[in-house]
């Protein structure tokens, strides 16, 4: 592995899931740092602060976004995120990770430019490894 991802981001309200992903990332040593937001609003607030004092190190290279969350769900986050992401001057790869298998959700996600792919929970360890590896090459 020539380059390891510096910062990854999970936006998900399921603490058990987040906990497990954290463990996998640690065990497989997939990235240096991981930040977690419990809902879209928290994440969006963070990105808006970053926007004001551009610190590229604080911008994640990869985001895993859940859809069903309280306060601000994944769709609403995406709407706002698409608006500001170009100003962040860094390529951010965004995956939707949801337990929804509703085809309406899948289609909608595919129609959004900033979404790289739609992953249905449960994700496998191999999937995760693949994504992180893919990102670095």
């Amino acid at each position, binding site marked *: 592995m020539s380059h390891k991802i510096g910062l990854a981001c999970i936006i998900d309200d399921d603490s058990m899931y987040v906990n497990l992903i954290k463990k996998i990332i640690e065990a497989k040593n997939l990235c240096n740092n991981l930040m977690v937001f419990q809902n879209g609003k928290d994440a969006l607030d963070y990105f808006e602060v970053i926007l004001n004092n551009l610190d590229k190190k604080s911008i994640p290279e990869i985001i895993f976004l859940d859809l069903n969350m309280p306060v601000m769900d994944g769709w609403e986050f995406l709407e706002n995120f698409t608006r500001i992401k170009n100003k962040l001057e860094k390529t951010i790869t965004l995956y939707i990770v949801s*337990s929804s298998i509703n085809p309406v959700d899948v289609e909608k996600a595919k129609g959004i430019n900033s979404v790289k792919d739609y992953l249905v929970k449960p994700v496998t360890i191999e999937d995760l490894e693949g994504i992180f590896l893919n990102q670095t090459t």
Partner: protein
Amino acid sequence: MLENELFDNVIRDINAGYWQLHTDPDKEIWSDKFYMDLGFTKKELKSNIDHFLEKLIHKDDVEVFRDNFLNYRKNSVNFKQHIKILTKSGNYKLFRCATNDELPVNIKSEVNLIFFFEIKLEPEQAITKDNFYYKETAQMTATGSWYVDFHKRKSYWDFETKRILGYPDDYIPSLKESANYYAKESRQQAADLFFNCAMAGTPFNTEIKMVTANKRIFWVRAIGKPVYNENKEIIGIRGVFQDIDDTKTKELKLHKSMDIIASQNSRLFNFAHIVSHNLRSHTSNLSLLVQLIEDIEDPEEKIGLIKEIKQISSSLNVTIEHLNEIVTIHTNKSQEKKVMRFQDTLSLVTNGISRMISMSKAKIEVDFDELDEINYIPAYLESIMLNLITNAIKYKHPDRNPIIKIKTYLEENCKYLRISDNGRGIDMKLFKDKIFGMYKTFHYNDDAVGIGLFLTKNQVESLNGKITVDSEVDKGTTFTIEF
């Protein structure tokens, strides 16, 4: 007497009134039918020309008839004319009078006759006939006609309009008060329609609520169109009202049950998704965990991970319990309803959460004056009140103590419960569609589970009621339940 038998027969068949001339004026004969038409008996009239001219014929017709008559008698000059003759009842009847040569039928006679055929005015006959059909149609279809005359500033109703609206036959409709013939909520609609028709000539055909003389509100189809004079000016509006209350009420009922079915359907669909989504999030965690356990070599770490299974299992249980609760709502709805006093249920609820109420310094203002009891499933009423009151306290405004206003009221035969608070409110633009969804929370409270309002909605709807919400951030939230 008639000498010709054929002629006699014809005369009898057509049953005509006639005047048989004679060389001796005193021997002239009027037929029985002629007497009958006039309503007199033979004794009451002298069948001679002087008496006829003097007493019976209308003065307008005297001269012409006298000339014709004398000419016919003396010179056998045939004639025909219209003539008005006085009847016993004091009215003039119109007759077509003709000598036998002028008749369309070929009647040869040895004697001179003047026939009198009563003219029953054709147009009048037609109107009576039409009138009959019109009345039948009006009654059978409950359709009344009306006319508004702009010049006379009067409105006219026919018998059926009066019947539909419950007014007596001699009622004179008032143009000034015409708004009062419509239900309150329909007055603007009526005013718009009539104004547009009167000013722009726009005809209308609509369904509208009207009020009968004894204040019963009912549905009417109102159709109207402008009436023009020769100068193309609108001088009035003519139209009909049809009583469609039966069909309209059925239609509305049908709509309501359709709405209920649609909402039940969407609830079922929602529920299927909830089941799928909620169970899925646990099973996917479980599968992730298993993968991790298999992947990790360190036995101590493995044991640590196995403990996580306990956590997943208990979350799964909670979810299943929630789902169970929802399912039982729909199987429970056959549960017995009881007449519940709102105050009793409220006391029960507030006693149960008295600690929460006193801690939050919440004030509850109650008004059950208009409606103090309801036939409902007791457990639901309790659960609904509990949910809405605890919500109001949980999501109170940080700067003020909660004030919860609870009011019951009646509106158009429906029973309502309204619970409003002065809490932090919900952003309706963002969350309008999500408020009653499962596991939707709108605040950062740790104890927000997102199940309460979902249950409340399900309980209300399972008994064919409705719950609506209105809210403004920083002002407060109002829930209204239509039972």
